[in-house]
């Protein structure tokens, strides 16, 4: 019954969505206030209805209602409650419903907090947002309906993929979707502005918080996914350049570019048409990602679309929205006259360089991801593009970004001077090079990756610190310190986010260059050296979990005579899914992670055991958290609050 109500609520939301797509748009065109005002209650009720549908599906999972096809395929009565809940979005249909829930959430937020927007712009934004949502209602209802029943309900379900029975599933997809879908707001603002034919500083200010929010969620989502892969997959890889990862990375890069160019629109009324294009492309790449992930077109090269119907449908959605928006853009972009002029050396130029490099980086990821498809369809070559290509082709652009970042971020608006910026950075350069030399002297090999990573990381972090310090003027130390506390939050956000990027760059380089790996057969009681540690295999026992059996190893790690930690890596077997998983045991540290994996028993006795020392591993995700924190601090800036200007409606001339 509840399931049917949920299904019905989803259909009702679909109907309201169609109305919200049309009525406010017509209202804005004709200047009818009543029609424009329809958008707000409509957006709110869409959100309430979809929330109800989502709750109904969750209820079916929690109560293990196996008459529902989706629950039968992806759940089991013995599964722990948390995985019954997170299992709602651990499958295609449920994750699509989550996607729609977040689309309507953003729409509702724009209705609730958009009181400061001119009525026609708000009506158009909400109409465009609803159009996107409608496309996905149709997609879920016609091709991926989560509410389908089975004629004869089975006694128990087939269980969720054991690898997904992890807290990672509870948090990673929701954050990722908040990011992906959040970019739909930037898209809606861009299309609404194109329809109105007006982009000004106010528009730049309005679109920025939404982009910032989407970007920071995407940052958290990607970092969580990378961390999850690191501890779950059993060899400590954190990034694989998999098409599906790339699908989330491309929108992230473009959203980062968009964040920066929107600043120029807001502060200087330049780069308007470029910013609009970026907003369209960023969401376009989100949709492309959805297509790549759900059609299976790229993961299996030999069969076009695992589920052709879904793939084709998503391709149509992508074509309509990206094609439509770009056509509109081609027709209208010429009208957007830049007001602010700036000289070749200026903050604006710095941001143009940032945008070019970020866009080209995104393009590298894009062409590498789709090249196997192109090569097979056009030249008939069956080939692969994997991590070694991306490492070689992507890294140079990101090194360029890291080198340019401190310089560009300190240039003055409108007309800057490189020599004035370079002066305070001289010391930073010196320290960075010295640290790199130190790293080179300490490390054992001749690899350049580690030292270069140290230099770039230090350059970016210290550059960000220098930047914020330079903003405090030229007076005495105490006065500058006092001024530091009064700096706008946006400045602090910028500093923290930039420093976070430096930390991540360092972490990636360090783990790549200095990881130690040891693979061996060990018997109980064996003790062996790995790096500066010794590892001892103490005991191996069989145990029973809630829905699995496990081989549990007890291993001690020693440093000299001191026992550092006792770890218990596991190898589990899930009987329902008939699938083994490896649960690595990790001792997290600031300077290094100890990462132990227990493998199969060997024919000649003993067990296969893997030991990894992963230096500075947590800096990778720590840096990402700093980036997200920086975004959050910026978002809390008075000037950027979503409702900024709500109390000063006169600041924005109404049409």
């Amino acid at each position, binding site marked *: 019954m509840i399931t049917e109500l949920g299904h019905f609520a989803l259909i009702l939301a679909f109907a309201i969505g169609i109305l919200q797509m049309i009525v406010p748009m017509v209202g804005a065109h004709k200047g009818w206030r009543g029609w424009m005002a329809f958008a707000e209650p409509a957006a709110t009720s869409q959100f309430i209805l979809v929330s109800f549908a989502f709750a109904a599906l969750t209820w079916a999972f929690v109560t293990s209602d196996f008459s529902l096809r989706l629950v039968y395929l992806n759940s089991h009565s013995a599964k722990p409650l948390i995985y019954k809940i997170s299992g709602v979005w651990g499958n295609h249909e449920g994750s699509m419903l989550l996607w729609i829930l977040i689309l309507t959430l953003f729409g509702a937020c724009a209705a609730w907090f958009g009181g400061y927007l001119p009525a026609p712009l708000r009506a158009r934004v909400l109409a465009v947002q609803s159009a996107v949502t409608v496309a996905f209602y149709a997609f879920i209802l016609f091709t991926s309906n989560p509410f389908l029943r089975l004629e004869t309900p089975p006694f128990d379900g087939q269980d969720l993929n054991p690898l997904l029975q992890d807290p990672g599933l509870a948090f990673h997809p929701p954050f990722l979707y908040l990011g992906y879908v959040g970019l739909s707001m930037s898209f809606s603002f861009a299309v609404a502005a194109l329809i109105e034919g007006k982009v000004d500083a106010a528009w730049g200010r309005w679109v920025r918080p939404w982009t910032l929010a989407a970007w920071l969620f995407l940052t958290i989502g990607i970092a969580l*996914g990378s961390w999850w892969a690191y501890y779950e997959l059993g060899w400590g890889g954190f990034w694989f350049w998999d098409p599906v990862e790339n699908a989330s990375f491309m929108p992230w890069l473009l959203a980062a570019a968009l964040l920066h160019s929107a600043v120029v629109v807001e502060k200087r009324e330049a780069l308007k048409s470029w910013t609009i294009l970026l907003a369209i492309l960023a969401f376009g790449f989100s949709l492309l990602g959805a297509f790549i992930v759900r059609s299976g077109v790229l993961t299996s090269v030999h069969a076009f679309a695992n589920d052709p119907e879904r793939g084709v449908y998503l391709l149509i959605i992508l074509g309509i929205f990206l094609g439509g928006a770009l056509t509109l853009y081609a027709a209208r972009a010429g009208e957007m006259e830049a007001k602010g002029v700036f000289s070749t050396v200026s903050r604006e130029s710095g941001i143009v360089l940032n945008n070019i490099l970020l866009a080209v980086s995104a393009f590298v990821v894009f062409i590498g991801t789709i090249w196997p498809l192109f090569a097979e369809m056009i030249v008939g070559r069956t080939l692969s593009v994997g*991590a070694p290509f991306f490492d070689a082709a992507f890294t140079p652009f990101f090194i360029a970004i890291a080198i340019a970042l401190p310089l560009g971020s300190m240039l003055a608006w409108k007309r800057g001077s490189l020599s004035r910026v370079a002066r305070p950075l001289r010391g930073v350069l010196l320290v960075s090079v010295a640290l790199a030399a130190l790293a080179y002297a300490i490390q054992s090999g001749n690899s350049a990756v580690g030292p270069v990573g140290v230099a770039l990381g230090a350059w970016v972090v210290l550059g960000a610190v220098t930047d914020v310090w330079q903003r405090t003027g030229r007076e005495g130390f105490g006065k500058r310190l006092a001024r530091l506390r009064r700096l706008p939050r946006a400045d602090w956000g910028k500093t923290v986010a930039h420093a976070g990027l430096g930390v991540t760059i360092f972490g990636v380089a360090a783990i790549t260059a200095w990881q130690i790996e040891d693979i061996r057969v060990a018997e109980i009681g064996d003790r062996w050296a790995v790096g500066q540690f010794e590892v001892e295999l103490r005991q191996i026992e069989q145990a029973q979990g809630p829905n699995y059996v496990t081989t549990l190893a007890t291993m001690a790690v020693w440093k000299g005579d001191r026992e550092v930690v006792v770890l218990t890596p596991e190898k589990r077997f899930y009987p329902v899914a008939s699938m083994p998983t490896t649960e690595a045991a990790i001792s997290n540290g600031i300077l290094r992670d100890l990462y132990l994996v227990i493998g199969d028993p060997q024919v000649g006795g003993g067990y296969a055991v893997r030991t990894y020392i992963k230096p500075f591993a947590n800096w990778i995700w720590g840096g990402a958290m700093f980036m997200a924190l920086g975004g959050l601090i910026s978002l809390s800036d008075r000037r950027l609050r979503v409702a900024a200007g709500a109390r000063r409606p006169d600041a924005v001339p109404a049409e």
Partner: protein
Amino acid sequence: MSAVLQRCAAVAVALFLSGAAWAVQPGEMLDDPALEARAREISAGLRCPVCRNESIDESNATLSADLRLLVRERLVAGDTDQEVVDFVVSRYGEFVLLRPDASGANLVLWLAAPALLLIGLGIGWTTIRRRQPAKEEALSDAEKARLDEIMRS
């Protein structure tokens, strides 16, 4: 679905097919550390032909284990790294190369981004130059004097 979900699915499929063996096995490794390091390096660049998007170094499939042994056999026999890679490619086609060579149409793959960078920089440069503000005039002596006065007050 998200990256990890897909990846997990891929791993799950590979596991299901192979019966759970995790990547490089202790028994496969060579005693000579230098040779073993070369073998790992080569394996990381070769794609497992039956997996989704994994190198034979990461993969758990039986075929990958066979290929890892093959790579090591060739190395022990005295092949150079390139000869080993060529040998595997001659058997399984260029599909196994995770880093496609820059021949023929693949030139587009390798050169498109650098070309785009040059185009982007060119467009950016000319646009900014064209919109250059007219040179602001320097202050006249009288204006400088007046400015000093203001600054002092």
